[in-house]
């Protein structure tokens, strides 16, 4: 139990997010109306994805400094969870856009950035699948992971700020931390970010354990 307190915390935070996020009062804003509650589900996905992909890059760097199959599996697992959270983020955002902008997808810097990020990590998975040799796969995909993150990720935070965007938080649209994120919403938003990120870590832990076990069984069969 002492080691698993954070799983209990995850469950509590997410329960709190779901209940409080759907029931507590939110500011009434034109157009946004009740869809503002998506802040508790959509935005934490991107926070969580960034944190988890960063963790994946950290494991890749550690792998290059000190190669071991375990670090490679960890980095791969975190990248996979990051992709999952990115896809959920795209889905929730798209659903939200349908009800506020009236369309599933528009040509917008933030949306395009998210799509490009998914393409990059799709390429990462393709790269991983095109090696026969385990060590080479681990090394080369670690290099690509670091390179792609360094080359593209800063841009997703800079580019949308250089151009006007329809997305909340840019171009004078109702934004985060300006006037609509009042202190009541903060009370739910920050726990939501922590909760969803911890959920991502949990998923990763399970998938990494599973693939480590699979590797173990595979090695036993070979022996």
């Amino acid at each position, binding site marked *: 139990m002492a080691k698993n307190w954070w799983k209990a915390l995850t469950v509590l935070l997410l329960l709190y997010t779901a209940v409080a996020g759907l029931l507590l009062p939110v500011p009434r804003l034109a157009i946004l109306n009740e869809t503002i509650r998506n802040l508790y589900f959509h935005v934490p996905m991107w926070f969580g994805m960034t944190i988890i992909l960063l963790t994946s890059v950290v494991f890749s760097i550690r792998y290059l400094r000190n190669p071991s199959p375990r670090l490679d599996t960890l980095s791969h697992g975190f990248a996979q969870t990051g992709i999952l959270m990115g896809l959920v983020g795209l889905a929730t955002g798209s659903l939200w856009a349908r009800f506020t902008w009236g369309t599933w997808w528009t040509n917008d810097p933030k949306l395009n950035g998210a799509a490009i990020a998914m393409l990059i990590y799709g390429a990462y998975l393709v790269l991983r699948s*095109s090696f026969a040799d385990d060590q080479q796969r681990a090394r*080369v995909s670690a*290099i690509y992971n670091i390179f*792609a993150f*360094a*080359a593209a990720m800063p841009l997703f935070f800079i580019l949308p700020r*250089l151009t006007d965007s329809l997305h909340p938080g840019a171009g004078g649209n109702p934004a985060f931390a300006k006037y609509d994120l009042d202190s009541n919403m903060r009370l739910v938003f920050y726990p939501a970010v922590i909760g969803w990120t911890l959920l991502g870590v949990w998923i990763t832990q399970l998938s990494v354990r599973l693939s480590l076990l699979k590797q173990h069984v595979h090695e036993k069969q070979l022996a």
Partner: protein
Amino acid sequence: MQKDFRLEWRQRAALSGMLLYVGSTVFVCYLSFALRGGNLPVPAWNALFWIILLFTAVNAVAKGFLQESRGRQLYYYALVKPQAVILAKIGYNALLLLGLALVAFGAYALVLGNPVQDMPLFLSTVVLGALGFASTLTLVSGIAAKAANSHTLMAVLGFPIMIPMLLMLIKISKNALDGLDWSASRSSVLTLVALNLIVGAVSYVLFPFLWRS
């Protein structure tokens, strides 16, 4: 490092092939648009130009690692430090792409007209673009060369990373085309320079790990 550069330069047999590639691509574009009377709207001119450059760059840089024999790589490995190899490759590729881009621009302006109003800004965009493409694609081609089916992988790995760079380039060159004041594009140019530096530095740090395997 200079020696390595010269070694690169010696295997330039593919250069004429690349020139022909650029020439025929531009001509195909010209013929495809000739139906509209040959004059493109300015944004389309810009976008088409950068797409031609993108594909040329991918093809030109891919030759760097993919067409190199295993024996020659071992020879380099014994001879020089990996940092020298990556710098020489980036430098060579940047010059190659710059040359190709200028030829492409010449041919393109010849057949499709030249709506550029701010020539210095446009040319510096082309220089920045050549540098950026070279430093991104050199490492990507090194990565792709290690894997099976490298040619497909080259495009799959390279394009998403290059999209942000390409967007900045298209934006700045659009400003140059419209003859806007320099101050309008200063922040984009600075971002692009910073991006080139980041990509170059990361390639420099990561390449030794790739080279070792």
